[in-house]
């Protein structure tokens, strides 16, 4: 795989230099020079070249299209015996992918006495593989890695998706590494290239400033994680028929190398951020940690959860567990109130799917107003207490 500039054809016009999203092209002696460090072979330069002087050689030409991996799988993560919502969200998207590929959709659930496993069928799965064993109870990753790798090797799905939960983000890369295949993190879009039968995986990168579409051309399965609340789940269909396959776990073949000794619950969070219908978030505009009281008061008046953009967390004003955005949590509440948040793309990545967004900021040009439903330009120190007061009396 490589990128070449044909020095005969190149006129040094500079159109590729302008096109390169990463600024990796220099025109030296009237010829384009591409720095390979940082180049992702995205092809924007060659698309923009009128002289066909840039040639990209991709492995994809040699891709094994006719391999024997078939079917779309969703890893249905359970947490404390309940299937996580992200599993149903993934099934909705995977259902559409499977339809395009004209193949089946399966869900895999590893756990002990998981409630309502059959629900996975109503949400779209044609088959569910259920491995029920006490070894999965405490959430130690090793048996999960072992068993999912074994099942994938046995049944050979072409696509396997998992939720980008803390557990998924830690255990799924291990599965991918054992299978020697690719994994794309935190996808916000999934689609199919029907001609090449490839999964098109789109994700934000560079803090959400750039979107990249990624493929896994040769290795199988194609694996991706998706943040919770990126896709919407379907309405469960009780008439959808599916098959449940109970798989015996062969205990003797694996021992967990890590041991959970203790769990201490964090009780400081009054309303769980990810599940809250109403979220009130504060940003750098609050100026100092004490001013988070304004946010807490407003949240209390609405019975909502308190969130933060990245700068207050970096400054230590509020714990990381409150951070919403690319490197924090993704929320999709009915109402999101952003106070003193300018709206860096990476913050928007964590909240822009909220049903209604209210932005309060003193800068009318703040990017947050570009995703907001309602905008108030003004002094938050005046607006927020007034709003809290009005809501208390409402």
């Amino acid at each position: 795989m490589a990128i070449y500039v044909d020095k005969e054809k190149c006129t040094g016009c500079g159109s590729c230099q302008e096109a390169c999203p990463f600024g990796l092209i220099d025109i030296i002696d009237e010829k384009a020079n591409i720095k390979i460090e940082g180049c992702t072979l995205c092809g924007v330069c060659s698309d923009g070249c009128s002289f066909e002087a840039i040639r990209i050689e991709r492995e994809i030409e040699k891709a094994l299209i006719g391999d024997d991996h078939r079917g779309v799988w969703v890893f249905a993560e359970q947490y404390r015996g309940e299937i996580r919502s992200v599993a149903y969200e993934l099934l909705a998207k995977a259902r559409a992918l499977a339809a395009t590929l004209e193949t089946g959709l399966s869900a895999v659930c590893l756990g002990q006495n998981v409630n309502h496993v059959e629900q996975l069928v109503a949400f779209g799965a044609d088959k569910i593989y259920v491995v029920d064993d006490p070894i999965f109870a405490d959430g130690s990753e090793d048996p999960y890695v072992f068993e999912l790798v074994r099942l994938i090797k046995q049944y050979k799905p072409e696509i396997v998706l998992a939720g980008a939960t803390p557990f998924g983000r830690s255990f799924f890369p291990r599965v991918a590494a054992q299978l020697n295949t690719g994994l794309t993190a935190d996808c916000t879009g999934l689609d199919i290239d029907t001609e090449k039968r490839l999964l098109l995986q789109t994700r934000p990168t560079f803090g959400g400033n750039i979107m990249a579409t990624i493929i896994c051309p040769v290795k199988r399965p194609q694996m991706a994680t998706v943040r919770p609340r990126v896709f919407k789940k379907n309405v469960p269909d009780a008439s959808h028929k599916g098959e449940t396959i109970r798989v015996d776990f062969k205990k003797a073949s694996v021992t967990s190398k890590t041991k959970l000794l203790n769990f201490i619950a964090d009780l400081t969070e009054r309303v769980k951020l990810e599940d809250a219908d109403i979220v009130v978030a504060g940003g750098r505009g609050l100026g100092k940690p004490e001013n988070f009281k304004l946010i807490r008061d407003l949240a209390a008046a609405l019975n909502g959860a308190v969130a933060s953009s990245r700068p207050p967390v970096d400054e230590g004003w509020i714990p990381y567990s409150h951070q919403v955005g690319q490197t924090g949590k993704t929320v999709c509440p009915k109402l999101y109130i952003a106070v003193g948040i300018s709206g860096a793309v990476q913050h928007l990545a964590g909240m822009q799917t909220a049903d209604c967004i209210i932005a309060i900021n003193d800068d009318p040009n703040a990017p947050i107003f570009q995703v907001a439903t309602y905008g108030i330009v003004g002094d938050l120190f005046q607006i927020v207490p007034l709003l809290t007061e009005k809501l208390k009396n409402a």
Partner: protein
Amino acid sequence: MNIVVCLKQVPGTTEVKIDPVKNTLIRQGIKSIVNPFDAYALEEGVRLKERYTGKVTAISMGPPQAVDMLRDAISTGADEAVILSDIAFAGADTWATAYTLGKAVRKINNFDLVICGRQTIDGDTGQVGPELAEMLGIPFIAYVSKVEEITDRKIRVQRMAEDGYETIETTLPAVITVVKEINIPRLPSFRGMTKAKTAQVPTWKAEDIGAEKENVGLAGSATQVVKIFFPKIVQTAEMLKGDAETQINSLVAKLKEAKLI
């Protein structure tokens, strides 16, 4: 304790500016820094060395200029540093990165613990740590917020869970990834800076670590970027007019109408 810390050099800000005319990233004026999560990894490595004696080796895969970051690592307590730099490594995805780091860690004899940051701030995948553990075939613990104790070839840590903290134990050697809650990285010491200036930072190329060319860089990457584009954002907000009182009255009315309150 023989500790290896993996570092990555990243752009110094996540709020990258886009050139509105050319629609490209503006890279001028953005200096490279050590990935912030990796700075916590390095600090923890140095603290563990101070607690249990031993050696900290900082490694980084990247372009030759990443050597500056590795010298900084020495000035803040790393004993040795190695840069993995080879044109063949360029364009690596997380699989190829983990493969390459794995080969390099294997070359460092008798390592006990590998520490990585939980994720980088440019790629944000968080995949290299867990993939590296599998490449090495050793235990893995993510999101470590405290190393409680290391005894008798075992490590006991506290790690951040979704709704609390877990105490987990595993055997050494192991790979852990750390969160920012774990420590506050120190500033370079005068002695460290002097040492960093003269320290030898060897460069390892693919053949030095026995890495197969078809497994590194773009060639070894299972995934490929096929398209890059800029997210489109369109102005949608209805701006509420008037003084604060009027704005809030109309907002409350709208929220009531939408049955949000």
